[in-house]
């Protein structure tokens, strides 16, 4: 019996004991499957490619249905992502499918930032999941997972090589999402050109270090088919929702004057291979890779950015509580420091202002002291003047009284003289 992960994990700590009858735990996988089917599955595809490469048509063809949406024009100012969610059912399996389309990719004159909105979108889905996972009260098992499980990268069928926009974008996305490159509208390429084209693309991807998704070969039941398919990458696809009568069957095809391209004919294109790999065989693996690889990478980077570590300098593992507590203490310390700083600043200002005002007060008093002095001086002068006036007055009075006295005397004398004179006259 093949070794399982659990068996490896058990290692020395567990002994293997034989069973003497049928216990029944071999129903565990069925129990798990039943639960999953009851719960429903979800799958999210991102289609990246220039406008007009047939992304929407391919989705319609893959899922045998007409998803909505108008074909977009080429005059978008930037790259936006539009996502639509559909509930599909096949037999007893319910699938919540989300298709995300890049609108306006490759239409701008300057395409340097084209990849940014795509990366942001993918990161935003990771972030939403991370936030949910970090909540105190969380409901992970009923969370609608919006993380992108597969990215179909549509390569234009030039027949020569990858465009630099393609390389740049895929390089930015390969650590965030499972990239499956496909050659779109491949009915424009002849068979011989196609083989060369595929080789060129693969070698360019390798030489630029772009990690595209490899179909897993570790499970024996699917290892063979997966490794064969790996060698057919990138898949050259043709999409069509129109049906044409071939023989006595209606098949999906594109009709040209020179012949009919049948979508599901493996000689004509790799559509069937894509469907096999993407949906029938590896859908679960794509979801698992997204969760255990891409999401973990994002989470790790995000937590490290926020300052979380697994071990302290002495290599002792932190418990979650310690980490949170440490963060919290740091945080509180910061806040307190800020408060202190602000208070200090105010104290400083108050001091300065007080000093200013004191200065002003001092000046004022000095000013008025000066004025007072001036007054005093003036008053003094005034007093002096007054005094001198009084002196003059006095002198004058004295003079006057003296003069009057004299006058009186003179008058008296004069009076007697006049009397004498009068007397003399009379005589």
């Amino acid at each position, binding site marked *: *019996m*093949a070794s*399982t*992960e*659990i068996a490896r994990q058990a290692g020395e*700590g*567990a*002994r293997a*004991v034989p*069973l003497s009858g*049928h216990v*029944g*735990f*071999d129903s565990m996988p*069925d*129990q*798990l499957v039943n639960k*999953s*089917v009851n719960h429903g599955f979800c799958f999210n595809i991102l289609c990246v490619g220039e406008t007009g490469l047939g992304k929407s048509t391919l989705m319609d063809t*893959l*899922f*045998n249905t007409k*998803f909505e949406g108008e074909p977009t024009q080429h005059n978008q100012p930037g790259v936006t992502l539009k996502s*639509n*969610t559909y*509930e599909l059912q*096949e037999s007893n399996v319910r*699938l919540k499918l989300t298709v995300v389309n890049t609108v306006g990719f490759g239409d701008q004159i300057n395409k340097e930032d084209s990849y940014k909105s795509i990366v942001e979108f993918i990161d935003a889905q990771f972030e939403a999941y991370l*936030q949910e996972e*970090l*909540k*105190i*009260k969380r409901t992970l098992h009923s969370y609608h997972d919006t993380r992108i499980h597969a990215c179909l990268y549509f390569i234009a069928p030039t027949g020569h090589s990858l465009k630099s926009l393609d390389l740049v974008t895929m390089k930015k996305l390969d650590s965030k999402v499972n990239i499956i490159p496909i050659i779109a509208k491949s009915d424009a390429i002849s068979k011989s050109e196609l083989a060369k084209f595929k080789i060129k693309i693969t070698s360019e991807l390798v030489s630029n270090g772009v990690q595209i998704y490899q179909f897993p070969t570790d*499970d024996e*039941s699917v290892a063979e088919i997966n490794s064969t398919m790996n060698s057919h990458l990138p898949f050259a696809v043709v999409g069509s929702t129109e049906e044409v009568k071939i023989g006595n069957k209606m098949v999906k095809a594109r009709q040209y004057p020179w012949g009919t391209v049948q979508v599901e004919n493996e000689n004509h294109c790799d559509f069937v291979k894509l*469907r096999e790999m993407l*949906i*029938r*065989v590896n*859908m679960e*693996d794509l979801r698992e890779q997204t969760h255990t690889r891409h999401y973990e990478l994002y989470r790790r980077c995000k937590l490290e950015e*926020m300052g979380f570590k*697994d071990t302290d300098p002495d290599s002792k*593992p932190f418990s*979650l*509580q310690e980490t*949170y507590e440490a963060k*919290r203490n740091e*945080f509180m310390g910061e806040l307190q420091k800020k*408060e202190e700083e602000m208070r200090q600043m*105010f104290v400083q*200002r108050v001091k300065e*202002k007080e000093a200013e*005002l004191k200065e002003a007060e001092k000046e*004022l008093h000095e000013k008025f002291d000066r*004025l007072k002095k001036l*007054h005093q001086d003036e008053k003094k002068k*005034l007093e002096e003047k007054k005094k001198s006036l009084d002196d003059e007055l006095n002198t*004058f009075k004295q003079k006057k009284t003296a003069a009057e006295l004299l006058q009186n005397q003179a008058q008296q004398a*004069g009076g007697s003289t006049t009397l004498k004179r009068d007397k003399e006259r009379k005589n």
Partner: protein
Amino acid sequence: MRPGKRSGLRVLNGQQKNLEGYVGFANLPNQVYRKSVKRGFEFTLMVVGESGLGKSTLINSLFLTDLYSADYPGPSHRIKKTVQVEQSKVLIKEGGVHLLLTIVDTPGFGDAVDNSNCWQPVTDYIDSKFEDYLNAESRVNRRQMPDNRVHCCLYFIAPSGHGLKPLDVEFMRRLHEKVNIIPLVAKADTMTPEECQQFKKQIMKEILEHKIKIYEFPETNEVEEMKLVRKIKDHLPLAVVGSNTIIEVNGKRVRGRQYPWGVAEVENGEHCDFTILRNMLIRTHMRDLKDVTNNSHYENYRSKKLAAVTYNGVDNNKNKGQLTKTETDDGMSPLAQMEEERRDHVAKMKKMEQEMEQVFEMKVKEKLQKLRDSEAELQRRHEQMKKNLEAQHKELEEKRHQFEEEKANWETQQKILEQQKLDSRTLEKNKKKKIF
């Protein structure tokens, strides 16, 4: 492996899409099946009960193996002074499926004279497994985490025939929110069916009275499954018998207990509920037990633990408001909470700044006003003094003026008088001159 169906596709509500033709995601369950078998399964089962209730025998019977044997004795054979919690791990394989089974037992439980707190080691053990999982889940670098949490606890009730003992009640009440409890009546072959019925009824009544939450079997829409669940519920607590020996009965080799009066067969549904237990525990509900542990018991533990962390380091006195806030906002992670606290703090600081600014401005205004007032006052006084002085000046001026006028008058008067005198003298002189 199930074949993929080609057509006959139904649609669902919401964005309904009609799928015509084969897409292939009906194969998803097979993919899940494949992956799960490749990974293997794990399960941790805890058995609790006093010594001698047949716990080890039951485990051996359940898993059809000698988990407990002479080399690895069961809990009752290990005489302990205090209650220990011990685990044994075995790896069993069946039909390509690997199961890592951990049996946790509690030798010494309920055996002492004073059994107060004998559940403590058990709760500590369960909590420590939760803690391990929480820490593993919270690491920055995470790897495939082994799930060692206790998924199910089989509680053995002694077949006294009367009801639950206080220890039973206490233990179950302390653990029902940490682990899935399935109560069992041990050594059911010591009771007649009627006694057993009575006993079971009594126990279920007491369980209800004490509000003990035993494991709830999930409701489903499937009729068959519901019938099964009904049957299990009707038989709770399951009366079990275990045996390590195989006896021949009517040509069949069965596990059973040989008595002089007959053989009590373990797997006979009329003799005991063993088959019900095994089917439920292993064949139908093993997955659900794990899910309930993960989604319910573990999440409870986790949210309590993380809520405690965010309360830490926070002053209880000034935080009445904050406590209620976090209670209503517990849909957040501690980090988000810190973010919000940071925002609050920024707002608080702004407000504080504004207030301080206001106070500052006001004080400055006051001071300036005072200064201006005193300046005005001084100015006024200065003006007044000036006016005063000027008035005095004027007065003085007038006085002088008056004086000058008077003086001038008087002087002119004097002059006139003088002139008059002179004139009169001259006249007299002239007169005298004339006379002669």
